[in-house]
């Protein structure tokens, strides 16, 4: 969520200061520059990951009172307290404890819940596929809405259709995801009886049944998501359509749909692709709400349940893993983008 703020923040900044990378100075240096840049990016990723883990650790351990009692819950026994003290190494100094905890976490051990006895890492991993499926389906649905509307808006820019779609988009961005989900339930499930509001089916129950359970939750995210994608595609495509090679394609006598599909779409879709990657990370937050509303057994719902139950180790592990996933996805996309961005190549070509 904070990231969308930053994305919109970028729009507020006047041209020259926006994060424009300067074109690569020369071909020979390009590789070295790329490697250096990637290394710096990876270094920063490492620092951020350490900071995130310290913060996550600090949140629990900075709580007032005895951590053992906090973790153990209200109705715990003295033996239990002793065991927790032992498990968490509460007799050691916080620094040692952090190192022990981080070491365990690196080897895949995030401890286990003292309320349910489940190991934290295993229960998160078991729920990961549901969350990932939700994210992927919502992105696909969002793309299905964003591509046609974005193309129409770009080709008929400033027309009535463009204004209408953009107006709808503007309004949709003012609907928080929980209201969108609620409206989806109300309309499609309660009023129209098209789809069930809840009732997760695992993939083993059949692909169709499984997908059916994801349609409404996916739409709830996609309905908000498509606006961002549509805007990105629209503005990139408007730029593309002014390029000389579009005029050239039209001069070949190609019909408009061919010009758009073969010549304009691909060069306009690079930013779209990056944004999709970033958005998947962004929606890790939304999944908490959507999974809860639609009773999907994913990470978000697990995290919220743990919060309600004050299951501290589960919450700690959940936050750590979600944040790690988010940071890593974003960094990977950043690096991959810089390496494969063809526009850097073209810019180099134009300079030559």
């Amino acid at each position, binding site marked *: *969520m*904070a*990231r*969308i*703020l*930053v994305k*919109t*923040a*970028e729009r*507020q*900044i*006047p041209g*020259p*200061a*926006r994060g424009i990378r300067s074109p690569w100075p020369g071909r020979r240096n390009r590789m070295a520059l790329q490697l250096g840049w990637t290394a710096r990016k990876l270094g*920063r990723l490492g*620092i*951020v990951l350490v*900071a*995130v883990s310290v*913060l*996550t650790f600090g*949140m*629990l351990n*900075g*709580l007032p009172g005895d951590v053992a009692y906090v973790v153990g819950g209200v109705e715990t026994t003295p033996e239990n307290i002793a065991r927790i003290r032992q498990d968490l190494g509460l007799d050691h100094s916080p620094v040692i404890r952090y190192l022990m905890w981080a070491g365990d976490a690196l080897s895949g051990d995030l401890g286990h819940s003292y309320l349910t006895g489940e190991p934290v890492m295993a229960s998160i991993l078991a729920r990961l596929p549901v969350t990932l499926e939700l994210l992927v389906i919502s992105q696909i649905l969002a793309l299905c809405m964003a591509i046609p509307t974005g193309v129409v808006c770009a080709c008929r820019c400033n027309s009535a259709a463009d204004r209408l779609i953009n107006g709808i988009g*503007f*309004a949709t*961005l*003012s*609907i*928080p*995801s*929980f*209201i969108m989900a*609620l*409206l989806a*339930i*109300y309309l499609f499930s*309660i009023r129209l009886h098209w789809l069930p509001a809840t009732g997760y089916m695992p993939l083993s129950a059949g692909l169709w049944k499984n997908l059916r359970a994801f349609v409404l939750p996916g739409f709830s995210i996609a309905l908000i998501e498509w606006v961002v994608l549509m805007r990105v595609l629209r503005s990139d495509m408007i730029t593309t359509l002014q390029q000389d090679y579009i005029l050239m394609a039209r001069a070949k006598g190609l019909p408009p749909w061919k010009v758009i599909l073969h010549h304009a779409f691909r060069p306009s879709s690079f930013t779209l692709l990056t944004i999709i990657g970033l958005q998947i*990370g*962004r929606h*890790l*937050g*939304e999944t*908490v*709400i959507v999974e*809860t*509303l639609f009773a999907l057994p994913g990470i978000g719902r697990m*995290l*919220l349940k743990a*919060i*309600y139950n004050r299951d501290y180790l589960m*919450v700690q592990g959940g*936050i750590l893993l*979600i*944040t790690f996933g*988010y*940071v890593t996805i974003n960094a990977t996309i950043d690096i991959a983008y810089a390496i494969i961005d063809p526009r850097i190549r073209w810019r180099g070509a134009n300079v030559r």
Partner: protein
Amino acid sequence: MSADATARGLGPGFWLPAAWIVIVLAAATTAGGLPIANPDRIHWEAMAAPPGTAANNVDSTESGGDHSSPGTFWLGTDAMGRDILSRLVYGARVSLAVGLVAPLIGIFAGGFLGCIAGYYRGHIESIVVALMDIVLAFPGLILLLAISFYVGANLTTLILSLGLLTIPAFCRVARGHTLVLAEQAFIDAARLAGAGDMAILFREIIPNIIIPMAVYGLMVAAFLIMAEGALSFLGLSVPAPTPSWGAMIAEGKEFLEATPHISLIPAGLMFVTVVSFNLAGDSIRSVVERRESQL
């Protein structure tokens, strides 16, 4: 066409949403003096009443001189028989407190950091940017959940943590503008005239970034109202009896089939308010942009 729009300045696209925000704000601040029901009072005989239900049989209740009893439940009652209109008015206090106060934290702290980073560059800038990256590393809602979980939820911690969340964004806006401004000739002129760094920051740079920061603040306000709504929808915002829009929507979701108004009315209200903030910000921004492009 564009010339007309400039001549008009801020059109109805700004004044209508602005008027709505003022109305909501006025209602929220004067809630105690408005002729509306007590938001916590339970009307046993009118549970989940639809909008417009007359409440005349309610007046004969034991509480005698309760002048806050309404004649009509204009927006109906919720599942516990509480007047929705008055709960909305009181709930607006939470939403607006969050939406209007939390961005101030972001504007001051983020603006300060951004100006310093953009003006001094070098190590200060690297440190600020790195710090902001760490805050941004957390998915926003997850960070909010964590804070409200560990620190506990009340209005103060809510405003503080939401405000904290907006610092990186404001910081980036401020830094971007400062970077551009610092290159301009009038900054050099001020420096040649003997102005110190602080004088330049406060007299030349800050006045020039106030408008973009304020415009952005409106959009952040819209975002924060939604974020607070999400938190209170999950029951992690202000504690239970205090009315808040998100909680009202959550309370009604079990009764969506029979009495959808319990959820949908607060949802609609939240939407209109959020749209208003967005529209107001957007219209100011486009006017500012048009003026700048004409210079």
